[in-house]
């Protein structure tokens, strides 16, 4: 991963918000530096007001840095060449309410200068992927929050971006939607795309991110691989098929003798998310009608370009 050049390079980034009279109001980002590489899912974590969204907006050219440098694909963020390779899903999907889902994707596709045929193909695949094929001709103003997030995600992928910036991508989605988005993120990363994920949901970040940076008051307080943060080096866990009480006692006695410490026995737990998914999958198998978003199938065909790698 690190063999390739960084896609995003932030060096000593500072953002000071000022009032009308140019008096300093707040320092949202203070000396932030980080790199994001192709094929990695990078998580930006931090409490409210820590500077996550400001950092993303600076990377997208929506805000101008007070100091420091920003390079995206080696260019300033306002560069058209850089923006051609970026997909962005904002924290709230501010879409044109009167456009239908298909018109919305068509409009953003035109902004990427995509030809009519290419747009048509991609729109159909994306609508299928985000589970909105049945609602393609409904105005997005009528969509639920979850459906709006799905169409927001689809517009972020219309240009087959090399860098995908997702601000709270699972906000407002049901557990199936969350799972689908996380699957899409992982599949995109496997195909060499870089994903920058900003989220409050630590479980989501843990599920998909390889590296994270934790921001506080505009500073990077901690940065590194997720495993390095979450793995305990002082204990190990061995999972076995279900055993009888006698067999367990025999094993424990053997461990006590060899390790000299008291081992713990626990039954592995299934997460509530897994349990929920299992129930819904059963309901879907029984062909129950849904009025909202349908379950997605797989990553859109045109997004499957690039070498798939094991994550």
């Amino acid at each position, binding site marked *: 991963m690190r063999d390739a050049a960084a896609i995003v390079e932030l060096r000593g980034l500072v953002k000071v*918000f000022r009032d009308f009279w140019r008096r300093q109001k707040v320092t949202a980002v203070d000396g932030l530096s980080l790199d994001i590489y192709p094929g990695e899912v990078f998580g930006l974590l931090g409490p409210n007001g820590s500077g996550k969204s400001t950092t993303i*907006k600076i990377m*997208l*050219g*929506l*805000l*101008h840095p007070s100091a420091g440098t920003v390079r995206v694909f080696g260019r300033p963020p*306002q560069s*058209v*060449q850089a*923006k*051609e390779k*970026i997909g*962005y899903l*904002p924290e*709230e999907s*501010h*879409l*044109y309410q*009167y*456009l239908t889902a298909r018109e919305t994707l068509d*409009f*953003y596709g*035109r*902004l*990427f*200068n995509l030809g009519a045929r290419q747009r048509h193909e991609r729109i159909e695949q994306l609508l299928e992927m985000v589970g909105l094929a049945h609602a393609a001709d409904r105005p997005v103003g009528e969509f639920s929050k979850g459906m709006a997030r799905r169409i927001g995600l689809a*517009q972020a992928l219309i*240009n087959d971006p090399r860098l995908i910036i997702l601000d709270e991508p699972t906000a407002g989605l049901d557990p199936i939607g969350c799972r689908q988005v996380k699957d899409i993120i992982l599949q995109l990363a496997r195909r060499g795309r870089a994903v920058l994920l900003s989220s409050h949901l630590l479980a989501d970040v843990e599920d998909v991110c390889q590296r994270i940076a934790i921001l506080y008051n505009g500073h990077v307080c901690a940065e590194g691989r997720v495993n390095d943060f979450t793995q305990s080096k002082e204990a190990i866990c061995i999972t076995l098929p279900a055993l009888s009480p006698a067999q367990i006692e025999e094993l424990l006695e053997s461990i006590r003798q060899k390790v000299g410490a008291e081992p713990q026995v626990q039954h592995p737990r299934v997460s509530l998310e897994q349990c929920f998914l299992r129930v819904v999958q059963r309901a879907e198998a029984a062909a129950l009608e849904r009025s909202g978003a349908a379950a997605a199938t797989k990553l859109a065909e045109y997004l499957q370009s690039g070498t798939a790698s094991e994550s």
Partner: protein
Amino acid sequence: MRRTLAIAWLAARTAVRSRLVIALIGLLAVVVLGLPAVIKGDGTTTGKIKITLQYSLGFSMLILGAATLWAACGSISQEIEGRQIRLVVVKPVQPWHVWVGKWLGLAGIAALLLAVAGCAVYIYLKWHLQPDRTPPEELKIIVTEIMCARQKVWSRSEDVGRAAEQRLRELLQHGTLPQGMTRRKALAALKRQILTERSAVRPGGIKTWHFDPPDKKWPVPADAAGGAVHLRARFFSAFALEKKPISGTWQFLDDEGELRGTLPMDAAPEKLVRLTVPGEFLPPSGPLLVRFVNGSEERSATVIFDTDDGLELLIPAGGFAANLARALVILWCYLALLAALGLTAGALFSFPVATFVAAALLLMALTGNYFAWMSTHGEGDHHHGPAEEPGFLQKIGAQAALAVSVAVRPALAFAPLGKLADGQWIAWRATAQALGILAGVYPGMLLVVGVLGLSRRELAAPP
């Protein structure tokens, strides 16, 4: 181009979906069809047709102008406030794509609505001018005076510079030049005085005007058949209280002084006199001399012709439908300029501020001439003593008003509705100039300001 057109399509769609277009079509229908029914006019069909052309289209322009300015002010600023623009500018688009795209969309909608208003007016006129609805005599006047396109040809302006210089020298020699009057002002006043003197024709006297043919030749009689050549004169009697009719003869001569025809005149002063000039009175090429021979003292009085528009020749230059189309193109240019003004204001300020700034700028542009005149001439007269020397602030204000007046003068030079209602030809050249100036140069300047503002503005800044 695809990006710009995508934004244009979106801007047009926004206007349609927000029901603005439907509301405007309803308002235009009320104005175009309702106004001629409400306004009484002079009771003649000719008056009604003039009202329909001038007021219906004028009010339509007022409504469309206000709506275009308002929609343009909100087009960018409301998207910034509603945050939709964030998803647009993070795509590979430049600020000028956004500005030009929005402008094309708004100008396109304005063109469509103006075309609807224009077509409605045209259909209404055609319906109204059926032989069973309009008396034949009046129909003839309307067709030859209003529903036509006649080119106005002015007589050569008289060179009175030398005579004015001579008179000024005499005044200086005798020391009778009023105190405090500059040489420039004195010369201008003397020129005016000489022109007024020369515009008077005593009974039995003669006055001659020289007309140069437009495009180097006069229309041959066959050309004139579709719409006759007219001579239009406005004059006053030297005896203001005595409205005695003026009798005289109009003579038409070629450049070598050969008489080509005469027309008798017996008309009351202070009214516009229209005379139809037969085609054979006009020379094939070269200047046309028009001579007024005032009648005898018993049958006439001293006549004073208006120095500004005393005499004009109106020659047929095209059909009414094409003239209406050209007038609509010029009106559209004004709407395109208003769209540009609103977009630039919206790129720089929030919606309410943008609307206020755009309206204030528009007001300044429209009143700049008046304020420039006021600041240089002042109000009232100065018969009771010499004029006060203007103060520093007054001078600054005068210069600012003058600058605004000079800057907007080219934009205010077109007045298509007055010409249309008067049956005057709106030249292709004037239409092209309007397109260049109103829909090219001014929007171009506003584009630069708007794009600079949009580039420097932080589109995701907290409110």
